């Protein structure tokens, strides 16, 4: 096949098949790096949940299951419209392709809109990561707030509460050690770390949704210009792969963050 018959074929590829397969391989390699990127955050999640399950049980009550579930349905449906858009581009159905890409973009807007509502509620209730964590009374779900400040009993100077020296690595000891920081009643300590993990994971995912929306908008412009045909639909296919990966990550984030039991 000559290159003049196929204007989209780059000079360094022999055939459209070779070009398509090479591009697709590159796309899957990129998706693998994305999985590894999120893998680090999933690892932080796993370690923190393994050591402090009580924080996850407590803090997940602040996440709205209905909003999270709605967002899951929106992303799944937009995944269908994207997969259908790839099919439409393969079959040369230009009007259907434009309609389906618009629907997918709409799904992205819907997802980010709900995300905005969720983040705004967290912000207003002071449920923020790190040093910004300052839950207001009305933000506490189960009446853990408005707890009177109990004065700590004064520790006699004669019995210092210095823990026994640690024979193991720093901060560890073989025998049962006295608890220095007992949990305050109601709210376990260090809840802010849950919100650190929550905002990092959903935030990075949200950035990926925004990037995907940008790419879909680019596809929309090109499909209106009539750039795609059954001979050349590679960009639609590859952006589709990216959009499905974003969906894939949310499939794991939703039960792990919202449905803790």
């Amino acid at each position: 096949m000559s290159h003049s018959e196929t204007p989209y074929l780059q000079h360094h590829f022999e055939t459209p098949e070779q070009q398509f397969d090479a591009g697709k391989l590159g796309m899957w390699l990129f998706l693998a790096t994305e999985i590894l990127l999120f893998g680090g955050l999933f690892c932080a999640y796993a370690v923190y949940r393994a050591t402090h399950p009580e924080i996850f049980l407590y803090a997940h009550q602040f996440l709205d299951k209905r909003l999270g579930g709605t967002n899951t349905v929106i992303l799944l449906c937009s995944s269908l419209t994207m997969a259908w858009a790839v099919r439409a581009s393969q079959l040369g159905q230009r009007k259907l392709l434009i309609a389906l890409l618009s629907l997918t973009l709409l799904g992205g807007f819907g997802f980010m809109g709900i995300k905005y509502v969720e983040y705004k509620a967290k912000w207003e209730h002071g449920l923020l990561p790190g040093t910004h964590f300052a839950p207001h009374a009305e933000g506490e779900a189960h009446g853990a707030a408005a707890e009177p400040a109990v004065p700590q009993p004064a520790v006699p100077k004669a019995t210092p509460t210095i823990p026994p020296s640690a024979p193991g690595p720093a901060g560890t000891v073989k025998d049962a050690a006295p608890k220095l920081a007992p949990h305050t009643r109601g709210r376990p300590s260090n809840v802010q770390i849950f919100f650190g993990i929550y905002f990092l994971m959903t935030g990075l995912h949200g950035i990926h949704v925004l990037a995907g929306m940008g790419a879909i908008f680019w596809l929309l412009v090109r499909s209106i210009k009539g750039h795609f045909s059954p001979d050349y639909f590679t960009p639609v296919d590859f952006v589709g792969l990216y959009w499905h990966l974003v969906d894939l990550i949310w499939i794991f984030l939703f039960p792990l963050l919202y449905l803790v039991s």
Partner: protein
Amino acid sequence: MAGSAHPRVGHVVPLRVLFGVLATLLVMTYVTVAVSGYDFGRFNLWVALGIALFKASLVLLFFMHLKYDKPFNAIIIITSLAFVMLFIAGALMDVKQYQPNKIEGYAPAIKTNPQ
């Protein structure tokens, strides 16, 4: 024109399959929300993860064409998933090793009891 053309490369997934996958995904989403109300003891997390893995497999196989693709692409993605699991498993094993001996709220570098 519409529907009659055939692509030079790639595989056209039938609409029946696409909608079937979406229906299954939505049902499984409902199931995962519904079962989160039940207590399976220590299997809670594994039930949720199992459902998520099943949903992810459907998306990978049909929406992302892996079922029809060259197997090399599947090898890449399965390998990356395997390495993420290895990474998390290794980190968890290390954490479990130290956790029972940890003194809560005590870090030697930080002065917790200035006297």
